């Protein structure tokens, strides 16, 4: 599996959308090729999303090559099915820079095709709760506070 995912493409939902977009693009490219043989008029290229452009560019796939697109789409579908997915719960929805930091860390340290989902829960206070498969890593501030009950009064300012 040699697919390289852009850092801004991190979630299974994004990848599913890209698959749909790739399928459309592939079919459009096939149609365009067929029409080009019969008609000499120029055909307008389909508009690509930023994520798809990045994905194609990062994997050196031409948006005009229907066979390459089909192969690539299959590859993306396989990745979507087999890539490890990590769910991260934070105290608030992370900004783009932070998402990129976390996704980069997972793709560098854990698996190059890791997919990550982000969700927010305000009662965590901070830190993160990471779910990998059936395991849950509670790295939240709430867990730290509960594990150090004797120091709760310091937080409350009593």
């Amino acid at each position, binding site marked *: 599996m040699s697919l390289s995912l852009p850092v801004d493409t991190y979630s299974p939902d994004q990848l599913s959308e890209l698959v749909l977009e790739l399928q459309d693009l592939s079919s459009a490219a096939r149609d365009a090729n067929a029409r080009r043989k019969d008609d000499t008029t120029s055909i307008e290229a389909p508009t690509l999303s930023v994520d798809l452009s990045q994905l194609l560019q990062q994997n050196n796939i031409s948006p005009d090559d229907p066979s390459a697109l089909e192969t690539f789409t299959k590859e993306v579908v396989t990745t979507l099915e087999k890539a*490890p997915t*990590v769910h991260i719960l*934070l*105290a*608030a929805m*992370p*900004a783009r*820079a*932070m998402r990129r*930091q*976390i996704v980069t*860390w997972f793709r560098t*340290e*854990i*698996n190059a095709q*890791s997919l990550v989902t982000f969700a927010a829960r*305000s*009662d*965590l*206070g*901070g*830190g*993160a709760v*990471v779910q*990998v*498969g*059936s*395991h849950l*890593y509670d*790295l939240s*501030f*709430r867990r730290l*506070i*509960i594990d150090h*009950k004797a120091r*709760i009064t310091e*937080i*409350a300012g009593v």
Partner: protein
Amino acid sequence: MNSLELILVAGLIVMALVNAGTLFWATYLDHKLRGRPTPKHYDVHVEGTKVFNDVDMAEVEKRADAQLLHAIQIASQRLEVSVNKGVEQLAAHVNDVASDSIRNEFDKYQASLRALNNQTVEQFAQIQTDLETQRTELLKQLQAEVTQERERRLSKFNERINDVVSSYLAETLGNRVDLGAQSAYILESLEKHKDDIKRDILT
């Protein structure tokens, strides 16, 4: 009335009997002396054959009275000595008998006290053992109950503290959480669990 008192009363009775016997003996001797047959006086009027004249007779009677008095005194002294000696011997005997009786009774008393003491010590040892066993059992039971109660309260406290902390964090921080400031902590925490996460992903 215990044995010692019985012995003392018996001793007093014996003493009284001895005294009574002594008095009886003295009275008997006195009667014996008084009951001695007195020489019969025969008035012999032989005017011409008088051996002693009146003066000599008076002198003889006087001497006889003196000798009789002296004999009575000696007998009395001897009797007194004899009685005193008898009383002393009797007293000593009574003392010996009383001492022996008291000693025997005391020995019995000591033996029974010793037996009682041993029995009491054994009973106390048994009671102490029972108490110790009971105390140990109670202590175990109490510890188990305390542990159970502690676990129950801790569990309840944890349930409540989770809610309290969650509510507190949600109310105080709300949406004003600065995740940017936490990124270093989050990445550091992920780094700490990197191996575990890798293992989970592989499995």
